[in-house]
Structure formats: C-alpha cells, structure tokens
C-alpha cells in the first residue's frame, strides 16, 4: 500500500505492507536506525517517536496510521549545521545514558514533554517519563538532563 507522510520535516512516499509497524518502516525501509526496538509491547518506550507531536510507540503503531501525519524521529532533532537539540546536549552534559539503547526514545519522550510544558516540575517529569525504561542509569541523571534542557530552552527563547 502507498503511504505518504511528513518525516522529520520532509514529505515521504513509500510502499508498505498493511501489517508493517512504523518502526519496521523506519528501520528496515528507510534505514533510520535511531528508533530502537526492545519490548515490542509498548512498555519500555525505546521506540518512542513523535506523530503530530504526540509520543507513540513505533513498535506497535502501524505505519499506515501515520498517513498524512507529521512523524519526527531522533534523526530529526539535530540541526543541519550539526547543532544538537538542547535535550541531546543536556543528555551528554548530565551523563544521562550509558549503553544508549533507550536514549533516542527517552529524548523523544522528553521532547514531547518540554514542547507541551516548558517548565515541568520534577514530579511532572517523572510522571511523563514513566513509560520509558532505562536499565543503566537509575534515572536520576535523565531527570537532571530534562531539567537542564528546560532551562537552556527557556534561555534560548528569551534571547
């Protein structure tokens, strides 16, 4: 079946099977391997991408559902000049990952939060991020990274 959608700000058209998940299309057809697949049951959040700015689990979201919509993956965050998104920079600065397998999904979930709520409290961060599992860090540095990114985004906005 034919599928057209916006991907990281550009229009895309491709053929896919009705049963293909968004993660399969991204990874297998488009070689966008930043979206990681782990639990495949919408529990771990590793495959989180944004569809019309809402975080979804690409492992179970059918590619077909994305027709006409705006999909953003981790590959869409870095600016063309190589500048990292404040969240990406904050994850580096706060050592908010180790193995890195959960990181793209973690950053996309956090982006959805900060786009919606630029000044979240610690409790709001914890509540929003509860659908993303990290087995390495113990979460504390991820919370710190999201707080740091929120601050730097607020500063960017001011200036």
């Amino acid at each position: 079946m034919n599928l057209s959608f916006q991907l990281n700000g550009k229009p895309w058209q491709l053929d896919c099977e009705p049963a293909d998940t968004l993660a399969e299309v991204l990874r297998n057809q488009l070689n966008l391997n930043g979206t990681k697949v782990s639990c495949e049951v919408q529990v771990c959040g590793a495959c989180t991408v944004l569809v019309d700015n809402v975080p979804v689990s690409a492992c179970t979201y059918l590619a077909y559902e994305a027709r006409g919509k705006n999909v953003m993956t981790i590959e869409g965050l870095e600016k063309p000049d190589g500048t990292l998104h404040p969240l990406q920079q904050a994850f580096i600065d706060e050592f908010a990952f180790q193995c890195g397998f959960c990181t793209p999904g973690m950053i996309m979930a956090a982006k959805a939060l900060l786009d919606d709520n630029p000044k979240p409290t610690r409790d709001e961060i914890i509540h929003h991020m509860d659908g993303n599992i990290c087995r390495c860090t113990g979460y504390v540095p991820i919370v710190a990274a999201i707080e740091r990114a929120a601050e730097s985004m607020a500063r960017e906005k001011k200036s």
Partner: protein
Amino acid sequence: MSAEKKTDFHVVNHSLPRRDGRVKVTGKAQYVADLKLIGMAYAKVLRSPYAHAKIISIDKSRAESDPGVHCVVTGYDLEGLNPYYGHAVKDHPLLAIDKVRYAGEPVAAVVAVDERTAFEALELIDVKYEELKAVLTPQEASAKDAPLLHEKKFEAGALRGFEGEVTAGKGTNICQTHKIQWGDVEKAFKEAASVVEGDYYFPMTYAYAMEPYVAVAEVADQDVIIYSSAQHPFMVRHDLKSVFNLPVSSVRLIVPFVGGGYGSKSYTKIEPLVAACSWKAKRPVKLQLTVEEAMLTTRSDDAYTWMRTAVDKNGKIIARQAKIVMNTGAYAENSPLVVEKSTNRCVGPYAIPNVLIENTSLYTNTVPASSYRGFGCAQVTLPGESQIDELAKKIGKDPYEFRLANAAKPGEEFFPGMRPFDGTLKQDLETAAKAIGWGTPLPKGHGRTVAVSGSDAGAYPLTSTAIRVHADGSVTIMTGSTELGQGSHTVLPQIAAEELGVPFEKVRVVSADTAITPYDRSTGASRTTTLMGSAVLEASREAIQQMVVMAADVLKVKVEEIQTVRGGVRCGEAQLNWSEVISKFYALPDGEVIGRAYIRKSGRFSALPVFWEAAATACEISVDEETGKITMEKLATVGDVGLAINPALAEGQDLGAATMGMGIGLFEELVYDGAQLMNGSILDYRLPRFSDLPKEVELHLVQNQDGVGPYGAKGGGEASLNSMAANIANAVDSAVGVRIRQAPLTPERVWRALKEKKVQGSKV
C-alpha cells in the same frame, strides 16, 4: 601501581563527557540490531513447549517447501559440527538433540528471506515429543528418584575461570559444588556469646538488557565471521572455534556498541546457532531474539541459603557457616563460576576467623542461569548483610557501629590465600552513614540502614592491547574490551591521553574485533578499567620508550641524552613532540609507532582477586502498613574505587547498579508455575521505573589510590547492587519490625509479615 600516588592529573580523574555521547544522542550509534549485510537472510527459532521431553521426530518438509524459506535447521542437521558448547562445561547443544531440557529451548531454526516469513514457517514444523518427568527446583532435582537432565560425561572447559574441577556429568543432577573452610566452626558456635540463624531465598532475576540478544553470522570459505551483542568476544571465539573445528584465526567476532549487558551477555549465547544457520543457508544470517525469547535464554541463579553467624561477648564476629543450594537451570553456562564466587562472597568483607561455606548448584528443567551483575554476590549478600543487622539487634548494638567494628581492614588478609584487602571500608561506611543521616531522628514507619559488599572481582588477569601513535600525534587504542555503556571508550582514551600527553579529543578507540584488536579475556567482573586500563597505560609508556629511541636516532644523540617531557622529548635546546619524532623518523609526515602491553597473572597481578570490589550503600525507606508498599525515601552509594578515572562515569555505574539491586529488593522476580515461566514478558516482569526512583539520591566515591589498576584505580559497578536487597530487608525490619528473609520484598510479602506479626502479638 599503588605505590605511585600521582595526583596532578591532566586528563584522568576528570569527568570528561562520554566519547560515545554524540552518536548515542543522535541515534547514530550502531548496534548489531542495526546491521544489514548484502544477501542477508533472517532466522527465527522454534522453541520447546515442554520442560523435559524426548524428541521423537521432527518433520520440517512443509516448512522447507514454504516460499521464501531457505532452510530449516534442527539438531539432526549438524553433522560435521561439534554441536555442544560451553566454556565451563560443554553441555549445551546449539539446538536440542534427542531431548529438550526446558520449556523455551531452541528446537529448530527457520532461515528465510525476511523475519516474518521465517516466523510464519515455524508453525509448519511438526515436532513429536514424548514428555518426561521434569524437575523444576533444586530440591526436586536432588530427590532420589529424580530424572537425570544430562546423561553424558563432561570435560571441564579450560576457560572455566577457576582452578577446581567441574562436578557436572557424574551421574547426578549436580552441576557444581564448592566449599571453603578455615578455623573450627563447630567449636566457635559452641563458644559463641550469641548466634543468629536463618533460611533465605534470593529469586531468579532477568537482567533486561534493552537490546535483546542479536547476532549476524557469515560462514563461508572455512571462515566464521560473527557480529554479536556479546560482552566477551574472545570467549565466544573459543566456543565457535570448537563448534566448527577451526583455527583461532578463522573465527572472527565483531562487537559494536552493546545495548546493555549486566552479565547477561557474557559468554556464548546465540552465536553457535546463528553460525549453524549461516553454514546451512550458505549466506549471511541474522538472528534477533525478542525480549520474551531473551527471557528464555539467560537468568540469574536463584539461591536457597541457610546461614548462621556468631559473635563473642565483645561483639566480634567469630564464625559464619552457610549451606547454599543454587538452581542453575538446564545448562551450566557460567554457573560453575557463579557457585565458586557466591561461596567466596559469603565471607566478605568481614574478617571472620572460623568459616565453613558449602555450595551446590543443581540442574533443573528451567531457563539456564548464568552470570548476572555481581556473579552470585547479591545472592549471598542478602543473607550475609541481613545477619549482620539481625545479630546487631540481638546483642543490642548499633548495626553501623557493629559493621565498623568487624569490617576487614586495609591490608588485612581476611580471606586466607587471597589478596589482602585493598579497600577502606571504615571510610566507605562513615561516608554512607553521614550521607543517609545516621543517628538523626526518623519519622514513624521509616527505616534507615547501611550495608557493605566486598567481592573478589576482576576475573582472570589476561589482557593485551596495542596503542598506535600516528604521525600527526593522534592516537588509536586497539582494545578487545566491549563498550556496554560502562564507558570504556571514554576511560581508556583518558588514560592514554594522560600518559602520552596528547589531547583527549585526539585519542580514538577501535574495539572488540577479534581479528584486529589484541586479546582481552572478557568485559565483566568490573575488570576493564583495572586490567585494560593498565594495559593501555603500559602500552602508552612502551610507545614512549620506542619514540625516545627514534628521537635519539633523529637527533643523532645517545638515547640517554633524551629526556621525556609531556607530549614529547627534549634534548638540550631541541624539543620535539610525538608528531615531529615520528615524521622525522620516517622522513614523511605519516607512519606510526605501536606500543604494546601484555597483562598476565604476574607481578602486581599475581595475587587474586585482581582487586576487592568494595562499596557501601545506605537507604531510608518508609512502609505503608496498610498495603505493605515500600517507598525509597533516600539512597546513598559509596564506591571504593581507588581512583575514578572519570568520576561521573564511576558514580553512574554505582547508581545504575544500586537501582538494579533496588529492583530485586522491591519487585523483580521470575516466577515459574509448573514448567512454564509465568511472567516471561516485560508486561509481567516488574522493573524499576522513573516513579520508583528514590526521592533523594547521594553518590560518593572513596579514592585512596589503593587498587592495582592505573594510578591506584580499581573496578566498580557491581558492588552497589550486591547489598541492596539486604539493605531493604534490614530497613523494613528497622521501620516496622518484621524480618523478611526473601527477596523481593513485595507489598504482599510485607503485608503478610505485618499481619502475622499482629496475630502473634495478639496471642502473647
């Protein structure tokens, strides 16, 4: 190296940003799951529904004639291979042969053009089984009429990691036994002023590396090339060389970034199977397990421990005795070493004059158990550290003071025949106690505890490396260590940059390709910073020695006239940096110098363990007496790491480990109901989440430069896990007065214990 207490560090001991930062936050980091080879096919695995059954027949004709299927591989298609592997005991067939030994065991693999075709063809394979009686617990496995899991005799593997014999394959279900003994335990318990005794259970747990096991194999022209998510590529190479009967040089393991390991990816897992698939299909094959399948591949050994500990009238611990029974599942994997380690780790880190620990692991018809972060230490630290608190309470001592009084002292040979203790537990405990607010008032229903762990870590010292210094002064480190997230790609360049005096940014790492990178035994047991770090340090110095000789040649002076300075050499007025030395030596602005180092069990590494991994953890919890739910109010970790090459990374390891330990203390447990794993999915296996993180966290490091590693460094990253289950059990007792000797302390278990206490209270 401990004599050399250097402190004016340029690069080392600084929290530099991770070298793999940018690729990991942009989604560009490559894992095996992301790999595609030209002409690659995909494999899916048919698994046994029975825990123990004879295979009567396998009909694969329908599956093989399915469009898109290249071939179907079973245990009967392996003629020409040695299908049994195992570094400790060669008991594990790469696909079931003659019988299956656990529900979930691979029976056949379909290789097809894509995953979906392979998956759908699994249904077309017809396997007839004759069910056999299964044994699911060590108690059942050791019963007189218990069926045998393994009928064959096994030879001990040369790379089993310990000096004793293996027990497996002697006509019983015993996989391994181990015993340590010193002093006179019976006499000590008779003379003791006070004794505590109890039975404890540590559950089966699942590491949940978020990247499930995955490998791509290309077997062609007598060569085996495997890309795998393995922690120990050189160990896997050894197994593959034996399966295919090939020289070492014909087997190549390549490990890109690994999506979490925690011990669960140590040693050989799916590599022989995927290699056999490629061998049969005559093309590259990828095998990507699901998380559910990963849960059917490896778990931790669960452990039943009876333990007693005695003190004299002065509050000095005089004896400890334990009998441990471990459940190793259907295959030995690394459990023989886990048995040895858990036996040893019953003692530490206390100086106890009379000790008797006996340990037996049994084969059962359950998922094979193997390494799990801390290697059997968490299993026995639950009883060990619980009894320290139980004993302190019984004799009316403060448990923190009681630990301080009995902990092994720096330099003390508290474990006969082993390396004297190289940590500072007093300082670890003091730091942890201060962080948790020891002695300050607590609200009702809150409990506060400290606990320690000291384990014989570092595995076996066999590690080599090559450091290539290029003509522009940049450097490439060739290391067999794998980057699992622990930060070796950051820490190793810090050491090379420190030694060579070149900028950190100019040092790159090529890692874990057995055809390219020099031999490194393993990436586990917290050994990389200590052993590979030492190799990088020594290889850097060896490169400098070579460049000094080159500089003398270039400057036409005697070698003795050359003086080294940071980043280069000086001779009188002349000063050359490494780039100039190399370029002038070759008379071209290109070429390189290769520094080498070989670390073996010799010199400062002749005593085992390589180091004692020590850490203290402290926590404050509250218990909801209505529901039994535990809330982590505060957590503190203190890693006794000698010297942190990168303090932020070392602290991150401690927090990650403590969080895993907290998971086991609170809710993680694989549950069998009969032959089937009942919670074999992440939907049902409860893991720590954001909402479980303690309300306050403090991370500390103790850095006395007392390790054998670079600049006095030692490993970390396991010890903070080990004591957490005991810490939580102790804190519950301190908060609400119930002693629970089983992990996890689920709300139901706490609630039941509270209810029982009430019933007993009302009877009095």
